[in-house]
C-alpha cells in the first residue's frame, strides 16, 4: 500500500511517499505529481525557481517506472532543482545501479 503526502511552500514541493512503489501504481502517481505541479503553476510562482524533492524515508521498494517518474520530473525543472531525499541504503543502491544518483541528486 503506497501512501503519499504533498507539502507545497511557495516554490517548493516535497512529495513524501511510503511503502512499496510498484509499477502498477506509477501511472496514477505520475498524474498526481503533474497535478501538484500544475497547482503551483496556477499560483503564478516563478517556475524557474521551482524545487521538488521526493522524500523516500519510508519507501521499501521502487519500480523502474518510478525511476522514470523521477527522471521526467527532473527534466521539467531547471538543473539542480530536483532531488531524492532520505533513501534507505537499498533504495540508494537502486539509484546507483541505474547510474542516476548524481543526475537525480539522490541524497
Amino acid at each position: 500500500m503506497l501512501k503519499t503526502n504533498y507539502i507545497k511552500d511557495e516554490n517548493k514541493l516535497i512529495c513524501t511517499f511510503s511503502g512499496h512503489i510498484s509499477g502498477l501504481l506509477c501511472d496514477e502517481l505520475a498524474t498526481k505529481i503533474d497535478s501538484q505541479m500544475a497547482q503551483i503553476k496556477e499560483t503564478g510562482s516563478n517556475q524557474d525557481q521551482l524545487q521538488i524533492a521526493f522524500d523516500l524515508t519510508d519507501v521499501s521498494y521502487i519500480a523502474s517506472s518510478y525511476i522514470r517518474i523521477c527522471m521526467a520530473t527532473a527534466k521539467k525543472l531547471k538543473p539542480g532543482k530536483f532531488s531524492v531525499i532520505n533513501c534507505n541504503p537499498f533504495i540508494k543502491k537502486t539509484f546507483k545501479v541505474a547510474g542516476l544518483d548524481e543526475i537525480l541528486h539522490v541524497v
Partner: protein
Amino acid sequence: MSELENFLETADQVLERAILSAAEFQQFDQKRTDQIVEAVFKAGFNARVKLARMAHEETGIGVWEHKVLKNTLATLLVYTSIKDEKTVGVISFDPLTGMTEIAQPLGPIFAVIPVTNPTSTVMYKVLIALKTRNPVIVSAHRSAVKCCTETVRICYEAALAAGAPEDCIQIIPAGSRELTQAIMAHPKLALILATGGTGLVKAAYSSGNPAIGVGPGNVPVFIDESADIPFAVSNIISSKTFDNGTVCASEQSIIVEKSIEAVVRKEFERQQCYFLTPDEIRRVEKVAITEGTMNMNAAIVGQPVQAIAKMAGIAVPEGTKILMATLNGYGKDFPLSVEVLAPILAFYSTKDYRSAINLCIDLNYLGGIGHSAGIYANNEERIMEFSQLLNAGRILVNTPTAQGACGGIYNSLLPSLTLGCGTGGKNITTENISARHLINIQRVCRRKPNENWLSLDLQHCLDDHYDATALYKEYYKNH
C-alpha cells in the same frame, strides 16, 4: 627499419621463444611441473629479503620490511595454496555424471607488474604460471626494472635447474609502451595478467587477447557502534601503514556514526594518528592529488607520513602513523575522498546508521566498484546488510583490509596479488586470481542420457496444443 618495426620484431622474437617453451612445457606431467614450482618457490622465498631491499631502494616506495612480508605472501602462501592443486591432465572425474575434466595450459602469459609491489607480483605470477605449464613474459614498471630483472633471474635459474623448458620466464626491456602494446596484441599470446592502473588494464582489454585485469580500489570501512573500537582502530592502522599504504585493498575512508565519532577520533589520536586541520587538509590535497584530476600524485605513493608532511609544508607530531582528513563530502570538491596509496585516511562522521551506509555506497562507487570494503561490527544483521549493499568482491569483517583482501593470512581467500573486481571493475571475476584461473578445462562427456528427455514425446513439442505446464509435467512423469 622504423622504431615501431623494431618493436614488432622484438615482440615476434619474444613470442616465438615463449611459444616454443609452451610447446615443450605442455608435455610435462604433474610431478615434473610440481618439482619446478617447488624449486622456484624455494629460490624466491630464500631471496625475499634481498629482493625486498632492492625493490625499496630502487622504487623509493614503501617499507622494506613490509616488502619482505609481501614476498613471503607471494611465495610461501601462494605456493602452499597451489602446491596440491591438480593442474595437469585429468583433474577430476565424476562417475555419476560421467564427466572428466582435463586441464590444459593456456600458452604464453604476459605478466604486467606494478611499481607498488614489484618483486612480490613477479614471484606470484611466475609461480601460478609455471604451476599451470604456461611460459610467462614479465613486463616491469620502468621504476622497478632492476629488482624485477633480478627476481626473474632467480626464478628462471631455479626453474631451469629443476628441468623447466628454456624461456619459460622472460622479461622484456622496460619503458617501451610500443613493445608492451605489440606483445599485448600479439596473436601468439594467450593471456594478459594485468595488474596496474586503469589505463594499463583498459589497454589490456582492448588488445584483442584475453585479459585478466583488476580494477582500482577506493575502500570504505565502516566502524559500527557495536564494534570493539580500540581493536578496529589498531587493525586499520596496521593495514593502512603496511608498506606505507601501497596495497590497493588498503583502507581509504573511515565512516562512523556521530554517536561514536568522539570515541573513535580519540582512539585514533591515542594510537598516534593525526587529525589534520582544514588548512592542513588543503595543503595535503595539493600534494596527494594531481590538480584538476581525481588521480593520486605518483610522488606520494608509498611515502611515509613525515615525507608527505614535508611535501605539504605542515608539521605533524613525531611518530605520527596516519594523516587523518575529516571530510564532509566526496567527489571532485573533496580530493582526499578518492584512492590514495599512502598513509592518508579520509574520516567521515554521519548523523545516523542509514546515512553512514549510504555514504559507504557513494565512496564505494567513487572509483572502487567491485574491489574491497571493510566493516568492524559485532552485529550480525548489520554485517550482512552492509555486505549486500556494497559492490565489492571482498567484504572484510573485523579484519585489516590490505592484508585481509590478499588472502591466506586472516581468512581463506586465495593468496594473491591480483584481486578481481567483477564487472563493476570491468573484470571477469571477483575472485583472487590464482593458478586455477590459468588453465583451460576440457570436459570429456561420457554418454549418460537424460532419462527425462528420453521419456518426453518429441511429437508433443511440435504440437502447439501442448503448453508449458503439460510438457513440464510430462518431462517429470514417473521420476
